[in-house]
């Protein structure tokens, strides 16, 4: 129940922030546009708070337990998931720095291993094959401008795609 209440509080804070911003939006110059730029967001914000209050009261009454493995780092599932969220975050952060090819070559084996794949040779082959296929199909065949990285890595990427 605690996890859901924290979630509801975060959603509530978000809606209150949205509502405060909506009240400060300018009125329309058109007299017929009675709602203006802020009217619709204000209606949504108020409705959102009412519905959230009803949901929260119900959560408090039902006292049902919701298991969120991501927060249970003592379990294998929880550790694996939390590690993968961090890995994805790092993957995205380094994407523009070291480029798509290198970041994918690093991400795929670490992610696969962290989820539970225990065959290193197969994982390495799979990583190289998937990276080559993704780069070939998107970067070369479909001319999708994949991230190239910076400096020397950027120059090197032009050799590949």
């Amino acid at each position, binding site marked *: 129940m605690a*996890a*859901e209440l924290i*979630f509801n509080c975060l*959603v509530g804070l978000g809606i209150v922030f*949205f509502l405060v*911003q*909506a009240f400060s*939006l*300018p009125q*329309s110059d*058109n*007299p*017929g*546009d009675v*709602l*203006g*730029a*802020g*009217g*619709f*967001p204000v209606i*949504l914000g108020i*409705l*959102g708070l009412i*519905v*959230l209050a009803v*949901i929260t009261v*119900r959560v408090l009454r039902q006292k049902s337990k*919701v298991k*969120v493995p*991501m927060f249970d780092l003592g379990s*294998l*599932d*929880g550790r*694996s*998931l939390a590690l*993968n*969220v961090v890995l*994805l*975050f790092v*993957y*995205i952060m380094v*994407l*523009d720095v070291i480029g798509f090819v290198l970041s994918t070559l690093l*991400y*795929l084996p670490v*992610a*696969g*291993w962290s*989820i*539970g*794949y225990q065959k290193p040779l197969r994982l390495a082959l*799979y990583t190289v094959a*998937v990276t080559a296929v*993704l780069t070939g199909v998107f970067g070369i065949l*479909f001319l*999708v*401008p*994949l*991230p190239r990285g910076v400096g020397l890595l950027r120059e090197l990427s032009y050799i590949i795609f």
Partner: protein
Amino acid sequence: MDVLIQAFGQVFSPLSAVLVVVGTVFGIVCGALPGVSTSLAIILCLPFTYTMAPVSAVVLLIAVYVGGACGGSISAILIKTPGTPEAVATTFDGYPMAQKGQTGIALGLAVTASSFGTIFSALVMLVAAPLLAKVALSFQSAEYFGLGLLGLSCITSIAAKDQMKALLSVILGLMISTIGIDSINGAERFAFGQPFLLNGINYISVMIGAFAIAEVFKNIEEFRHRDNTLREAKVSIKLMKFAEMLKMWATFVKSSIIGVIVGIIPAAGGSISSLIAYGEASRSHAHDPIKFGEGNPRGIVAPEAANNAGVGGALVPTMVLGIPGSPVTAVIMAAFIIIGLRPGPLLLREQPVLLDSIFLALVFSALLLFVGGRFVTRQFGHILKLPYPLLGPLIVALGLVGAYSLQNSFYDVIIMLVFGLVGYFFDKFHYSNPALILGLILGELVENSLRKQIIIGDGSAIGFVERPVSLVILVMVALTFFWPLIGSLLGKGKVRAA
């Protein structure tokens, strides 16, 4: 006729024909894999479509849709695990048939019913879409506001497990849709001077996050506990004798009609239509020698015909009104916009070849289900052995390419990650990801048509009830929204009377 010939030339050009084959097989494979839904399969195909010609892109996505709607039945029959939510009802009789050693016949029925449902819905779509487009040309802001609300109220009442949480999900989606420049008076809203927010939040990134990334997170914690044991080493499709199948013609037709109707209703989808069709078949044939739930063939025909018939049905409001009939068609609608097609009543006039191309792609895919279905089923043992630790990171990498290549923007990838986490928590706390997405997609339509109608009325909202069609739609909105409440009150009344 010229248009049909032109469409035939485009769909059966070497590239498009290959795309239909690849799309159908890819859809079946993804549908069969527990943890990879049809919407996820279409999202994974999106990056491929960015540089394609519109018709090629559309036929690929349609083929994946058809294949995915059928593919879920394979794992439902073989391992009692529906590959997609649409195949839940197929498990009830499909798995018992497999346990009796009738796996091949069960798979054959699923494929036959899916193909029949798809072709039936393609014919309905071909007739209904132009008619609806003609009617929709007379629609003004008041009607569009009502239709937008209808889509949102359906997803909060019909398609949701928890109405209040689905309603909050819709509201949050609508709130996110207001970020960016206000298209009526040009005011900057919730952008905080950040250029990437001025154009609003790209809903493809949100979809990739909420559907694909959140699904990967969910599967990482679930796949170890899943029983994916295949009972038979080799499986192949066996088609029932035509005369025996003909005895079930009423189930085929009735279920397809249910599928099309539920598909057309905004926000309802294949999972609902398949359950309704199953319920109807079990009611109509309650005295069959083989009971429902114990391996009755009609228990496979009904849900499979219905969920595939929903494909054509759901495409009608998506193309003609710009209101997606299901989360899957929301992804297809997004793809339409990316490739330069603007869904709405003028779409069929501006793109006369499009409707016929979709029709031909649906029929072609349906016929391919036999061939592709047989091939994929034989390979199913290998497909099922694909370990999730390899599949999950691949889905993430594909999602990342899809989000990044939308606008070559790093921010879209960040949005994907944020909504991946939002989608994960939504799933944990029983909020609705499809409702959030539909709110985000329909937000602009709902707000703009509301304000435009009020401006037309010089500050008055009376136009919404003065226009008859608008009034009817608003009454439908109220009925669909309050239906769960009315239903529970009626139920209580019956209990008291008893």
